[in-house]
């Protein structure tokens, strides 16, 4: 790979963001566009997502994860994107942007591309992050690990599961376990609102009669070798378990769906500034990071609800990485900071350049279950909403011409407030 012609755009990760970035970079005119994938096949986490519900927005039809990816991968091949699977990037040198890769056939190689796109996705929060007292038996998995066992390997992690957390993967896995003949005792969410999408609660829990307990959590793990059960308890408004509400639940499996964290080990190595709240790189609306030659898109930046958004963002990052590699992005573009208001938990991008129309993706801190308004000040955007929930992202759309018309702009403030 390294001994042939110079790579213009190097993309790390062939999930939905990376594949779309490849398409974007080639379409923009970059000559050699390479996507590296550490797994043996392309598609990232969507390989495991064999349930339907993907691509409704992009393709106007309901596809499974692999089907959705297949369409993009086909487009990428047609566009002349070069893929290398079983290839892991294990280091990026900060000063030179050299990318170190390993592969069983080619060994260890060092690449020096014109621009880099980070599309490594995210990972699941582990049990250790939440301090549940008790033992440490077999049978405790993140929902994604369990999904890999079931969907990729064809093995069952257990016969009777409890699901802690209500992120989308947990909801999907609840249904998946039922489909495979296992029992799901219930889904327990410590917050007073669900982590995942409303439609997933309806389709994955309600349709199968799986009990969903809000403001309830697992307070103890039982079992020496294999999990034998968990204690669950209701929590108060400060998420402290309420004495007297404890209940023992027999189960051999505990699946964790307690959040996703953007995966940025490489970004940190590369010296890219990481946002304290999103956990992903700080980016402008070109999806350029604090290192001008490095772009980032998808769940590595901020965890999205639906894959269509990830593909869109991948495309934008690919296009701009190509433009950067071809010397078309000037070093002194505008950087207008975006500021989140009172009820904004997180958002991306954090800077607007005015070079392009852009969508700012955001989540609220607290749910609003009545009519409300999402807006960007000064007078850039305003949209009425029926509700706003942390489990469902909101968007602010900004046009380049609006930014131009506003002239010198100190900052853009976004928020969602009840009407």
């Amino acid at each position: 790979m390294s001994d042939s012609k110079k790579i213009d755009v190097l993309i790390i990760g062939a999930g939905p963001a990376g594949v779309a970035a490849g398409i974007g970079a080639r379409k923009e005119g970059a000559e050699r566009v390479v996507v590296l994938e550490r797994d043996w096949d392309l598609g990232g986490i969507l390989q495991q997502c064999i349930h339907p519900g993907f691509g409704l927005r992009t393709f106007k039809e309901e596809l499974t994860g692999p089907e959705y990816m297949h369409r993009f991968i086909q487009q990428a091949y047609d566009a002349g994107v070069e893929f290398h699977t079983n290839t892991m990037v294990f280091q990026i040198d900060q000063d030179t942007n050299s990318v170190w890769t390993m592969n069983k056939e080619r060994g260890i190689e060092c690449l020096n591309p014109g621009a880099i796109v980070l599309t490594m996705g995210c990972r699941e929060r582990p049990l250790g992050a939440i301090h549940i007292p008790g033992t440490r038996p077999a049978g405790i998995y993140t929902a994604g690990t369990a999904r890999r066992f079931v969907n990729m390997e064809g093995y069952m992690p257990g016969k009777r599961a409890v699901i802690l957390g209500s992120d989308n993967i947990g909801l999907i896995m609840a249904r998946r376990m039922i489909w495979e003949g296992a029992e799901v005792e219930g889904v327990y969410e410590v917050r007073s609102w669900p982590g995942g999408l409303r439609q997933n609660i309806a389709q994955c829990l309600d349709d199968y009669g799986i009990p969903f307990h809000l403001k309830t959590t697992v307070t103890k793990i039982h079992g020496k070798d294999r999990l034998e059960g968990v204690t669950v308890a209701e929590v108060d408004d400060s998420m402290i378990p309420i004495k007297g509400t404890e209940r023992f639940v027999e189960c051999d499996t505990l699946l964790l769906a307690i959040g996703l964290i953007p995966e940025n080990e490489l970004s940190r190595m590369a010296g890219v500034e990481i946002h304290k709240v999103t956990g992903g790189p700080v980016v402008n609306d070109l999806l350029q990071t604090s290192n001008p030659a490095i772009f980032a898109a998808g769940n590595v930046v901020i965890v999205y609800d639906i894959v269509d958004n990830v593909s869109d963002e991948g495309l934008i990052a690919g296009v701009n990485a190509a433009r950067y590699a071809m010397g078309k992005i000037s070093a002194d573009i505008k950087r207008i900071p975006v500021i989140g208001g009172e009820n904004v938990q997180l958002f991306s991008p954090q800077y607007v350049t005015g070079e392009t129309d852009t969508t700012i993706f955001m989540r609220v801190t607290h749910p609003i279950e009545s009519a409300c308004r999402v807006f960007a000040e000064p007078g850039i955007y305003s949209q009425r909403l029926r509700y706003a929930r942390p489990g469902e992202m909101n968007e602010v759309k900004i046009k380049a011409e609006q930014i131009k018309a506003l002239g010198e702009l100190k900052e853009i403030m976004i928020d969602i407030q009840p009407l």
Partner: protein
Amino acid sequence: MNYDVIIIGSGIVGASIARELSKYKLRIAVLDKASELPSGASRANSSMIHGGFDDKPGSMKARLCVPGNKKWHKLKDELDVHLDECGSYVCAFNDEEIKHLELLLKQGKANGDPGIEIITGDELRKHEPNVSPEIVAALWSPDAAIINNFEAVNAMIESAKINGAELFLETEAISLLFDDRKNIRGVMTSKGEFKAPVVINAGGVHSGEISSWAGDKSFRIIPTKGEYILLDRSTKGLIHSFLFSCPSKAGKGITVLQTSEGNMMSGPTASEQEDPEDKTTTSEGLAEVIKGARRLVPKFPVNMSITTFAGVRANTDTGDFAISVLRTPRGFVNVAGIKSPGFTSAPAIAEYIVEAMREELSDRIKFEPNDKFIPERRNIPRFLYLSMDERKKLAKENSSYAQIVCRCETVTEGQVVEAIRRGARTITAVKMMTRAGTGRCQGGFCCPRVAEILSRELNIPLDEITRHGGKSKLLVGKTKEFLLEKYAKGAGQNV
């Protein structure tokens, strides 16, 4: 099976004795009920190599700690074990605690920990800027160090194996065998009889029970649980060494340290309990750890925690190690009640007890020097710490070193395969030997991959792979099997 010596327990004590004995032409069997090493107190502890100021002069602990410390500084190269020679501080918050530091200073000098000195809080903060501003003084012990305890136990037992000792995992000692009540003949185990004229009790938290089989009830083990919190390695450098609080009756107090791998860690609590196997963490315990950690290092970022765990240490009612060659029954050796500074002392304990055995048990076994003894043992190559040239070379020689299995700790397939070649049979064994699964995702990514490699290399079905032996299977069967069972029972007729 006939041996010269049987060692019950393969923690750091049993392993060190096995290695020390392998310097003689002896047939040595090491028994451990666990499926992987280390499993008991040697796994879940502070990984501290103590300076030696903590123990009352004249005690066995005081006598063996400093020599043990010195041995580890040499063994780290011989056994290829990670040892961070970082020193330690005991922190004092008030005048009363300064008095305690003075006592420790005196003790340390008496015990032979020569470099120790008391420094001011400001001097401490020059080296460790993130410690509490309220610390007024600290006892600095430059010879203290932090060891990779997973590596150390495996290295020690591997070295013993290289020199002829045999390790039997999942082999639980059930009782002692006697010729008559006066002479040891061997050990009855869950895997049958092991015969030997000498049996060494290195049973850790179970050593009291094993000792009572031999009729020695001169000490009692009080299982004492210690809970810990481990943080993500990105916290590296918050502090650089080992911080003690001033000790209380319950133990050495909550400490904060940087592990040999660069993670921040804090613990242990000290709660006495009946059950030697109860390693459950508790919300009270974890709260105590957090409080203690923040007292020393106010910024200790609990939100970066990647796991919590507990270990049970073998406290004795006498307060000291119980090390002796028993008169009756002949052939029984106690190396019991080894708690802090047990890990530190282990190599010195081994030397001490083997010397005692040579004096008192030469009529039962012959101590003929093993002139083929090889002191060196090399670790499985650790990709993370290799230079780029070394990595390239390794990947060229063996392509499985160019495949990452654990991305948090940069562990390659080559390392996992080598761990299996060296005896790993479970997910936890691979973890102990390679660190796959010890990082921030705690095995979320690598666990299925390690399971696949175990299945492939050992040629056993994936659903037979266990987390840590026994009934700890990862998987319960193939997909569709439950459905087929349900259909067979008629439950699916309405579907």
